[in-house]
């Protein structure tokens, strides 16, 4: 195994961790406002195609359409609030909604091919909030804007830990990581850090466990660094129990938006019944007034489908064959899949399914942890000065509870439904605020404790050493007495989360005892993480992805234990508290890990309405 053994020190003003949609927005905006500042982007893959938008996308899922009076920002707040069963940060949502149209107009100017409605002359709507695009090159376009604005971009460098300033309590001062191609150790010293590292897949065991394990809906490479990095630096997290389960085409995980929203396809049970209608009264008994939210919340739609499957009326079918009657619709449908889930096309081709002739099966995914979709897990952040009520504001927009540390996109909790355009917009908000923060503290130079940095260096490369020391005990294969491989650890973690914390094998059901047992098992796994072995740099990256996933899982389980209700049936169920409990739990859950004592504390914060 060749490792360069080199150390590279990078001094910068603003460090952006993760070059996805939020990170690119943060770079673009901070370079605009901070003309004389160094803006550094660090990305573990290559920003050209990294993150959740690697394929491209076929729709921009958040566009208000203010110029055509299509919607107002407050309409979006109401929609997202209903979908999340009440628990949203309305200040953060309104803030994104009032800016997001300017982001979309920039994308068009940069070269993203938009689709126009011939009758109205407006962007072609897919649904009330979504507009359709020819989006195969969506990510390369957005990445180009960031690349050309940044002072420097480090591709192929994975950030493993944030650095704190030893002289100032609770202040971030940079980050460390390693180059996944040559093994150089990187030390970034920065006056502000923006974490934009995306959500997490492979926390829960996926439905496919063989060669198809990578075909999860959420990309296999996003491993929750967005949460693991700030948690370990002492930042507070919110709503980590709020996991996302999506209804998608079975096995291929193709998107359902175009068929459901634009073509108005229906889904039926095996008897041809539209189960969402027949099951509605039963749903109302479970969730009360929340059943009247329009449109029906994403989790409730999952719930009625799951009931149908449990009662033996599967498979659930989406009737694409009834709505793909013109060549234009057929072509738009294929583009929808080729632009963002090519694996689904392979699945149809392999199984001789042409969606214009035959229906397809739907099912629910394994749970994911993220904050930009129909879900709101992530960091507890300050909102903007002009909108945020007391308790939601502490000086700088999108700053976490650690000084100088900002977040955007999936990183930020309480503000769901921002999707690609809203994540980029939130990156812009964080970028501008970080510039203000740096300029407001002109005398600051980042400090770090040398012994801490050298200890981190040893820790980062330890899996390579574990392998070198332990491999002689192995005749052949992967069964070693003294170490485990990252894949072993991942299998173990996914099994724990699946069986104890409400994964697919229990139909998303859990309870206090299961969760407590799961937590025990995660803590034991975390002890074993210092015995993970890596044969090469590829496995070293996997080792650190596993480490971050274990931190995310611990936070998820602690939050799920704390919230004693079933807020989002269809995402997960607390069998011991099966109902929505507005009297006690119409609040945010907030956790904090203390990096000095190693203790976690859990508390709640009020949900404050800003829009009627």
């Amino acid at each position, binding site marked *: 195994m060749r490792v360069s053994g080199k150390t590279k020190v990078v001094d910068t003003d603003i460090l952006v961790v993760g070059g996805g949609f939020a990170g690119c927005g943060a770079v673009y905006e901070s370079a605009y406002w901070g003309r004389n500042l160094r803006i550094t982007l660090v990305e573990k893959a290559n920003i050209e195609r990294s993150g959740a938008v690697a394929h491209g996308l076929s729709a921009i899922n958040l566009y208000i359409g203010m110029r055509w009076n299509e919607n107002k920002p407050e309409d979006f707040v109401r929609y997202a609030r209903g979908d999340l069963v009440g628990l949203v940060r309305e200040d953060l949502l309104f803030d994104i909604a009032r800016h997001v149209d300017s982001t979309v107009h920039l994308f068009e100017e940069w070269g993203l091919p938009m689709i126009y409605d011939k009758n109205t002359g407006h962007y072609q709507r897919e649904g009330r909030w979504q507009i359709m695009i020819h989006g195969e090159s969506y990510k390369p376009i957005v990445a180009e804007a960031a690349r050309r604005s940044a002072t420097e971009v480090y591709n192929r460098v994975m950030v493993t830990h944030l650095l704190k300033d030893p002289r100032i309590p609770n202040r971030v001062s940079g980050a460390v990581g390693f180059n996944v191609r040559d093994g150089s150790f990187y030390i970034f010293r920065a006056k502000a850090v923006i974490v934009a590292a995306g959500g997490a897949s492979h926390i829960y065991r996926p439905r496919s466990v063989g060669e198809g394990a990578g075909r999860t809906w959420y*990309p296999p490479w996003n491993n929750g660094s967005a949460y693991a990095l700030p948690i370990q630096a002492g930042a507070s997290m919110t709503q980590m129990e709020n996991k996302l389960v999506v209804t998608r085409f079975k096995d291929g995980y193709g998107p359902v938006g175009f068929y459901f929203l634009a073509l108005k396809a229906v889904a039926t049970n095996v008897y041809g019944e539209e189960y969402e209608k027949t099951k509605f009264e039963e749903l109302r008994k479970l969730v009360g007034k929340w059943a009247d939210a329009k449109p029906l919340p994403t989790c409730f739609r999952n719930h009625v489908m799951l009931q149908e499957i449990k009662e033996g009326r599967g498979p659930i079918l989406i009737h694409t064959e009834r709505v793909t009657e013109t060549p234009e619709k057929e072509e738009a449908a294929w583009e929808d899949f080729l632009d963002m889930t090519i694996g689904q096309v392979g699945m149809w081709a392999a199984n*001789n399914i042409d969606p214009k002739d035959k229906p397809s099966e739907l099912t629910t995914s394994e749970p994911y942890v993220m904050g930009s979709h129909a879900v709101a897990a992530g960091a507890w952040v300050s909102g903007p000065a002009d909108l945020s009520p007391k308790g939601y504001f502490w000086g700088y927009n999108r700053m976490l509870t650690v000084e100088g540390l900002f977040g955007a996109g999936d990183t930020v909790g309480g503000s769901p439904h921002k999707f690609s355009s809203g994540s980029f917009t939130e990156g812009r908000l964080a970028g501008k605020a970080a510039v203000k923060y740096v300029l407001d503290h002109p005398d600051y130079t980042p400090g770090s404790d040398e012994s801490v940095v050298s200890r981190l260096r040893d820790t980062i490369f330890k899996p390579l050493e574990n392998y070198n020391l332990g491999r002689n005990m192995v005749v052949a294969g992967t069964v070693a007495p003294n170490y485990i491989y990252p894949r072993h650890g991942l299998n173990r973690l996914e099994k724990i989360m699946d069986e104890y914390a409400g994964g697919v094998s229990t139909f998303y059901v859990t309870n206090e005892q299961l969760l407590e047992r799961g937590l025990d098992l995660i803590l034991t796994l975390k002890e074993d993480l210092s015995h993970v072995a890596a044969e090469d740099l590829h496995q070293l990256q996997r080792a650190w992805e596993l480490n971050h996933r274990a931190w995310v899982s611990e936070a998820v389980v602690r939050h799920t234990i704390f919230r004693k209700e079933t807020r989002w049936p269809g995402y997960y169920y607390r069998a011991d508290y099966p109902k929505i409990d507005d009297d006690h739990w119409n609040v945010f859950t907030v956790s904090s890990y203390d990096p000095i004592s190693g203790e976690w504390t859990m508390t709640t914060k009020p949900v404050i309405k800003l829009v009627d």
Partner: protein
Amino acid sequence: MHIDPHIRRAYNTEPEMCWECYSCVKYCPENAIDVRSYADFNPLGHSVTVRREPAKGVISWRIRFRDGRVKHFVFPTRTTREDSIPSSRSYPEPVRELLEDQVLSHEPDKLMVPSLPKLPPRPSDGRA
């Protein structure tokens, strides 16, 4: 993707962590990469092939079903030249006071409404 030093060909080091995003396929200048869809749920005998032409701003797809049916599609990818997007630093420098304001770069112009929208009054709590 890694290169095998003996046969000097590229291979996927970890197929079970492949998302079939086709990024490697689209970018290989020799069109040397093929994808065979996930073995644990997909039968053999199909193919999905692609050609991305940035200079023309289009992408072409060919889909072959197991039973031999074939479909072709061509879609636009970009309306501007590669490397034509201006750096955000190339615009006139904003005045320092605007840093205290809520507008982002290019706003309000790029919003295409006269000004940044405000929270509407909320009759239920008497806020006006």
